[in-house]
């Protein structure tokens, strides 16, 4: 009687939904992903596990466009992600067709979270094993937004957040170092957070920057390496500054 609550999503005696919690475990094992909201820029960064030599890395895009003004990154089961992303893309166009206006970021987040929740309350299905970071600009006010959803179907807006592997360390870093940024500074903050848990280098991270004018732009390896180099320089300068002054007595 008591043990079947592990296999399907029904309540356990102490009020847990084990399947949802196991799904969150799956997310914790997924690639690190970070999102940072600036005043005019939003940045998504995802850890890229070293690509197999024969694999065409262009076919493994982890940051995707849902519409011209909305993008998504996720951590967890990538196959589940494909299904959710497809449904979200259809919903974006369906919204445009029905009300002749682009969907807001909040609307799409609510839709995705709603889908994720549905699968925690149906018979014989398992929840989606992924958390998503959804970013975009409000089509009317131009205000940037960053939302996160998780397998339980909850969602909320964030200034900056991380999910996936070592997300706690990244979130701690962001909490300590977050400040209102714009443009390149936002990108640097996101990459710095990601570098806390990922090996340095353009080969190991995928970064995309969204602006109101240009939409989603994926940074190529060279651009990422350039920013990483800047970050390392700043770090070295900060270290030197710390050690420097005491000698001048």
């Amino acid at each position, binding site marked *: 009687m008591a043990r079947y609550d592990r296999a399907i999503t029904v309540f356990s005696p102490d009020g847990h939904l084990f399947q949802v919690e196991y799904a969150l475990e799956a997310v914790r094992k997924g690639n690190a992903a970070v999102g940072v909201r600036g005043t005019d820029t939003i940045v998504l960064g995802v850890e890229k596990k070293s690509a197999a030599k024969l694999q065409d890395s262009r076919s493994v*895009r982890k940051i995707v*466009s*849902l*519409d011209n003004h909305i993008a998504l990154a996720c951590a967890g089961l990538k196959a589940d992600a494909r299904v959710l992303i*497809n449904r979200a*893309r*259809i919903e*974006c*166009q*369906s919204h*445009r*067709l029905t009300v002749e206006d682009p969907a807001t970021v909040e609307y799409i987040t609510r839709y995705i979270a709603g889908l994720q929740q549905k699968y925690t309350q149906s018979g014989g299905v398992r929840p989606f094993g992924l958390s998503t970071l959804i970013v975009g600009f409000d089509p009317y006010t131009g205000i940037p937004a960053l939302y996160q959803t998780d397998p339980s179907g909850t969602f909320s807006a964030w200034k900056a957040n991380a999910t996936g592997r070592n997300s706690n360390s990244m979130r701690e870093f962001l909490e300590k170092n977050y400040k209102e940024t714009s443009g390149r500074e936002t990108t640097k903050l996101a990459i710095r957070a990601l570098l806390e848990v990922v090996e340095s280098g353009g080969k190991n991270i995928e970064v995309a920057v969204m602006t109101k004018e240009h939409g989603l732009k994926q940074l190529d390896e060279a651009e990422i390496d350039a920013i990483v180099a800047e970050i390392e320089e700043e770090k070295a300068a900060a270290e030197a500054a710390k050690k420097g002054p005491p000698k001048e007595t």
Partner: protein
Amino acid sequence: MECVFGLVGNGFAILVADTSAVHSILVHKSNEDKIMVLDSHKLIAASGEPGDRVQFTEFIQKNVALYQFRNGIPLTTAAAANFTRGELATALRKSPYMVNILLAGYDKETGPSLYYIDYIASLHKVDKGAFGYGSYFSLSMMDRHFHSGMSVEEAVDLVDKCIMEIRSRLVVAPPNFVIKIVDKDGAREYAWRESVKETTVS
């Protein structure tokens, strides 16, 4: 009474449509844009049942956009035309869309193209095409003056000739026309030909 026609030139395709929205004897408005921008490099000019015209072309537009998001690259003009024709064909024996379509597009690899799609889902790739009563006049003019590889100036001149024929010979000729063009730089409005300005309430 709706006049829609178009032709392919040197590196571009041009579509012309009248701009009256008519219901029986009443002209609702004379600046109705019947040429929709399907995506960055495609135009779709539609004539027929007003409700079907808008609903169907918007539906095609959103599905073309969805394809682009799903696959990372846009549909070719031929693919979009075949998709449109397929949707018309599927609905034909249930609840047909009464819309005639001219689909013009520019593809990097194959250049400009024009597709004639009528309401019973025929599909033809053509150099020039027309729908409506105006087609009797515009097709004749185009048959006389068209040659392949026309420049934009030559094509617009031919368009103006066709519009002049329609205005002078069609009993209930629409007063205003819109001209749109698609080439390597994208799809955009080219010009209006107005003989009756839409009056505004002061």
